[in-house]
């Protein structure tokens, strides 16, 4: 029994060393393989991201490898990173399941000459060259205030329905909305309350109902969270208030399609376009591999149809750098039909 175990161990170690040797042998010439490591399988949003990535890689005639882990865990991603490195890919773009856990695997990859960037949800600055961020928080703040301005007719009361009071992305967006509101253009627009629905359906509904009770003159609810915007739209629709109060914010097209119809509660809303996030990641990775950019602040590179892109300080303030996709994508009555089946 003991012998058998020993033999098995020797065989496995030999096999493993051979496979590593084989990988090293393949790394001699410059690879044209660009890998996207997604969060998990079966997520329509992630599928769209991969679609954009493939589109970009096809444009510069590279070879796209897209990997979907079976589970949304760091463990699965680490196994796949090791696999990709041994295949000798030129670069990896990863939508991380864990901010820190991938560091050893990604550093190992970098040491072997593989360029690493993150997209969608980032890894820590030590593990990445740069990060592709789906939306510029300043642009989100401006878009949402501009929407409130438009939907209230330029003056009147509006309220924000957020997720939890501790969510950093929510707070950054709300902060940027408040900054935008300081512009004299929005002087007649009054933000009466920031309510927190905690991204819970029931709490978001009661918070919306409380807004309606407390502020009878309310004209618009802006919910920069997918749970909040759907709950608010449902309450407004059920109470027959679609003509007096408009709902907008950041929402999932599939969830909001019901309320984005002629005479519905939500005339338009925003979110990022996952195809563009993947597309930008493809071109960013290419720029890194060709060493046209190194991920330093001020680096400029061309990103296909998106035009010239610049590396900036990360808006999350983690000390790293990032590339911002730009303005959030607008969903309205004209395009919701095609997007509602996407994600």
């Amino acid at each position, binding site marked *: 029994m003991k012998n058998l175990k020993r033999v098995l161990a020797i065989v496995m170690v030999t096999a493993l060393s051979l496979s590593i040797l084989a990988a090293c042998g393949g790394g001699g010439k410059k690879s044209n393989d660009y890998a996207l490591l997604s969060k*998990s*399988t*079966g*997520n*329509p949003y992630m599928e769209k991201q991969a679609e954009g990535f493939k589109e970009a890689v096809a444009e510069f005639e590279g070879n796209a490898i897209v990997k979907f882990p079976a589970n949304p865990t760091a463990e699965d991603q680490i196994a796949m990173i090791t696999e990709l490195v041994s295949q000798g890919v030129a670069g990896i773009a990863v939508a991380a399941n864990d901010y820190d856990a991938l560091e050893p695997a990604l550093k190992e990859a970098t040491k072997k000459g593989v360029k690493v960037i993150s997209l969608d949800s980032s890894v820590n600055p030590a593990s990445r060259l740069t990060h592709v961020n789906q939306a510029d928080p300043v642009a989100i703040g401006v878009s949402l205030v501009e929407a409130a301005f438009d939907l209230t007719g330029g003056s009147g009361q509006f309220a924000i329905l957020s997720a939890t*009071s501790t969510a950093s992305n929510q707070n950054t967006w709300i902060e940027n909305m408040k900054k935008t509101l300081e512009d004299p253009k929005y002087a007649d627009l009054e933000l009466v309350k*920031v*309510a*927190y629905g905690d991204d819970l*359906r*029931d*709490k978001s*509904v*009661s*918070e919306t*109902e*409380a*807004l309606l*009770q*407390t502020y009878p003159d309310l004209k618009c609810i802006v919910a920069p969270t997918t749970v909040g915007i*759907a*709950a608010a739209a*449902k309450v407004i629709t*059920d109470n027959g208030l679609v003509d007096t109060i408009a709902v907008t914010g950041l929402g*999932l097209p*599939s*969830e909001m*399609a*019901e*309320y984005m119809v002629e005479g519905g509660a939500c005339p338009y809303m925003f979110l990022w376009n996952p195809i563009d996030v993947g597309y930008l990641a493809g071109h960013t990775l290419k720029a890194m591999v060709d060493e046209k950019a190194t991920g330093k602040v001020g680096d400029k590179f061309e990103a296909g149809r998106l035009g010239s892109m610049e590396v900036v300080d990360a808006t999350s303030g983690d000390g790293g750098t990032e590339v911002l996709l730009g303005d959030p994508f607008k969903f309205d009555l004209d395009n919701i039909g095609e997007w*509602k089946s996407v994600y």
Partner: protein
Amino acid sequence: MTAKQDKSIVRSLSVARLRDIGLVLFIVILSIFIQFRNSQFLTISNLNNMLINACIMGILAVGMMMVIITGGIDLSIGSTLALSGMSAGLFVRDNPDAPVIIAVLIGIAVGMAAGFVNGLLVGKGGVLPLIATLGMMNVYRGLTYIIAGGAWVSAHQMNDGFKAISFYNILGINSMIWIAAIVFLIAYFFLNYTRTGRRVYAVGSNYEASQISGTNVDNIQILVYTIMGGVSGLSGILWVSRFASAQGDTAQGFEMNVIAACVLGGVSITGGSGKVPGVALGTLLLGILRNSLPLLKVSPFWQDAIYGVIIMIAIIVNVMVKRTVDKRNLQRRHI
């Protein structure tokens, strides 16, 4: 029946009543205070909103009360609710023309099956209820993601009939309120006037004695967990219909609110005692709190703390009333 027995029955009834009166008074004082802060509180439309929002918690609290009376607890109800709601949601998405009642039955059946498994683990398997339902909580949550393939069912994929379940008025009153009222009435009748109902109390107040006296304790436990699963399934349908959305993370952590409603309503967490009217009042109090805190015009950062403090005060008042009553009873017995 002797006069002495008669008297003790009367007394025990009045004790229960008195305890409820403590809670009623607390609710009245709280309502006056809230009304003072925001005059929109005691309006028909707001009270209607509040009652509708409290319905799901109330329905679940009735089931939870039975489980707690037998000395158990069920932490898996949030997951069971999500699993049933998702099953019904997927059915509606894939069969938009099928009668709505089938979706409702599927939801309840899935919930009962989940509850039955909990009951088997606790009753036949002898696993501690806390452990068994904690484990199954994760299993059912996982199953919810698996059957949906990580996706969700949105409002536009549900037919109008399904969404109308929670949005239909009978005699001017919302269907969810009717359903909750019926569940409360059935539970009241079952626990007070049927032999099986009385056995639920017997198992909780003295496990060995009820076993020796011929009660099939295992079956009673399986029964209460299956009922709990059934009402969770019903709640799942109502949840998905009301919010017009079936998600994998539906009602995560909701079990804690339900347990709180039971404890507020005077259900003893060690088993053996608990009354339907008490649970109704406990649910009402939590419902008022959840509805009125956003109306209070206080900073949202204070809401959670205020919520917790009021619950603590209510429980302390409740315990004090109970102790005073018990002490008075003992004094009477001495004389």
